[in-house]
């Protein structure tokens, strides 16, 4: 549904969609903040100022300082890189493995399809956080292992979505026509199936991305996510929890950063779905 000319229509439609605009703005700001943190932060996050610890927000430290006297705004800025990286890579892993699997299962059907569905069952049967705990118990905590843990859960999600979308596309008449033109399943999948489910994948990707941010925060909160000295929102919350009585700002701002980011991504996802997903704009005939 998104041939170039229709792109323009989609874009104008997108920009009149409130969710999309708000979501895009928040997401863009987040990306901007992450990019900016590479070249500039108000304070260096590696430098400790123990005497200036736990200071409430002030003109010097807009969001206050933490238990090591680090500037919380700077920590949040640098931490956004971590959240984005973990969530993004785990989405890429999930989509990179899950989508081909789903497409393959849909194209082949039969035993392969069954095997994929059982694999999905197996992964879904494991409570996600539990597996993350086990994975990090094996490999030790850290950003990379958080990515693996989250990524593994993205695989069946994408496999399922891709399979579902592909199954609904295969009986389409243009697929039959392509088959009548002698094209192989692989070629048809690449030429026809995949491009026509991009919308759904993009929407799902946004959703998984926001879930990834939440999951990373959760893992870091229990100490299994990325490790110091790399700032991470979840770990900031973990450290803040014992100090919430005397330094509530330490818990407040990283929490808000998570909420706003996830909110932004969800809104973006909703907006994208409204704009892109043909199911949502069913034409009445």
């Amino acid at each position: 549904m998104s041939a170039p000319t229709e792109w323009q229509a989609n874009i104008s439609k997108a920009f009149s969609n409130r969710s999309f605009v708000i979501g895009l703005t928040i997401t863009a700001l987040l990306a901007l903040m992450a990019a900016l943190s590479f070249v500039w932060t108000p304070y260096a996050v590696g430098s400790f100022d123990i005497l200036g610890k736990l200071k409430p927000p002030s003109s010097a430290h807009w969001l206050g300082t933490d238990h090591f006297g680090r500037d919380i705004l700077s920590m949040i800025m640098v931490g956004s890189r971590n959240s984005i990286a973990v969530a993004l890579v785990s989405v890429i892993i999930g989509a990179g493995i899950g989508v081909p699997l789903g497409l393959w299962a849909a194209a082949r059907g039969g035993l392969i399809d069954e095997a994929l569905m059982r694999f999905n069952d197996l992964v879904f049967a494991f409570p996600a956080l539990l597996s993350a705990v086990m994975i990090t118990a094996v490999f030790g905590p850290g950003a990379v292992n958080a990515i693996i843990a989250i990524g593994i859960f993205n695989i069946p999600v994408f496999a399922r979505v891709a399979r579902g979308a592909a199954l609904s596309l295969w009986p389409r008449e243009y697929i039959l026509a392509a088959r009548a033109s002698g094209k192989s399943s692989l070629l048809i999948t690449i030429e026809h199936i995949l491009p026509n489910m991009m919308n759904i994948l993009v929407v799902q990707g946004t959703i998984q991305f926001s879930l990834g941010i939440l999951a990373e925060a959760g893992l870091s909160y229990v100490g299994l996510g990325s490790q110091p000295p790399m700032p991470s929102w979840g770990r900031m919350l973990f450290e803040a929890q014992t100090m919430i009585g005397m330094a509530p700002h330490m818990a407040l701002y990283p929490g808000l950063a998570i909420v706003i980011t996830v909110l932004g991504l969800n809104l973006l996802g909703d907006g994208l779905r409204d704009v892109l997903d043909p199911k949502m704009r069913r034409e009445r005939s």
Partner: protein
Amino acid sequence: AKTDLVLGVVLEPPHLDPTAGAATAIGEIVYANVFEGLTRINAKGEVLPALAESWTISEDGKLYTFKLHKDVKFHDGTAFDAQDVKFSLDRARDEKSTNPQKPLFASIDTVEIVDPLTVKVTLKQPNGDFLYNMGWAAAVIVAPESADTNKEKPVGTGPFKVDNWAKGSQIVISKNPAYWGTPVALDKATFRIIPDPAAATAALLAGDVQAFPVFPSYEAVPQFQADPRFKVVIGTTEGETVLGMNNKKPPFDNLKVRQAIAHAIDRKTLIDGALFGLGTPIGSFFPPHHPAYIDLTGESAYDPALSKKLLAEAGHPDGFKTTLKLPPPVYARRGGEIIAAELREIGIEAEIIPVEWAQWLEQVFKGKDYDMTIVSHTEPNDLNIFARDNYYFNYDSPAFREVIKQIEATSDTTTRTGLYQQAQKILAADVPAAFLFQLPKTGIWDAKVEGLWENGPIPANDLTAVKWAE
């Protein structure tokens, strides 16, 4: 006055048999409350008689004769006598023993029953620490009938017996009416397990828990200090906290590198940052509250310029890359972050690798597969670890070993003090580890509660003297 008390403890014991597990959490529940040994250690770290009413030591220091209390009964009603003492000591020494502190019993040669209330223990060589050792939780006396089931159903001779253990939640002990000694004031005590520091704070504030003898969060302390409802006691522990270094692994095999690292660490910043100012700096491996303590922190005073110079002399002018393995406790994790930042200042890039205890024991302690680590050695009287073969520091100093050997064979206090000081100096000079601080014991309890230990000479929550003020 109230006769019940809810105490918070951070860790749940895996089981309740102190002779079969090292967890400090076991001692924190049962020591002096449920189980008793021949001797006991009090809040000041002194050795007092317990099940042994009195003892005599032979001239050569090798023969200990213990006179036992009479009319002592185990919780299951069986009588306590010399038989039980022999059983307990032999069991701990046995080849198949799973006693976590087997070295405590290593010096015992034989245990003989003289009569039901007298036991004779012969040592292989004199041991100045023997009576102290017999006061450890791992040396409590158990009955042969119940020894195998003590993990689940602990049967001791103490003033409390275990009522109920809701796993993961709490352990309830109640007064033993048949206790042989001074009756305790409390009828019932509940140990509630609260591993999460935030939850611990909340539980105290909300009054769910009335005492937290070892409060897990240093940062919340000021908040309680300001609150008249609570009494905050910052005591000492036997936990010498060190930045352990792998003395055989380059570049840490070079004294200059170790010195450089020691001089790069600002103990004040470290204590402020990791313990919110509550620890005591140490310059060697010895507790500051010990009479034989000497302050050697000046030997490794904070001096980054000197560090850089030492590093350059050692052939690392631009520093190097290394790793820092950190076990779970907050002093290690936070301290590690600060130390890593300080080392970065002198050019050493230490990658932080957090590990669980199981991994730490496996990799660092047993495997010696590490560069640097931070850990607190909480066992009392553990200066001798630097004299052990194959200990994880990989430190090997014949001079130091010799001093330790002498200490162990001496019971004279003045001589011992001199030897202790000598040992401290050797360590401060050799820097087998960077000595950081003595771990504080942050006790917080309801202002009306009396009799809890202020210090932690051994892991214990001795409730024998605890009562509510009117």
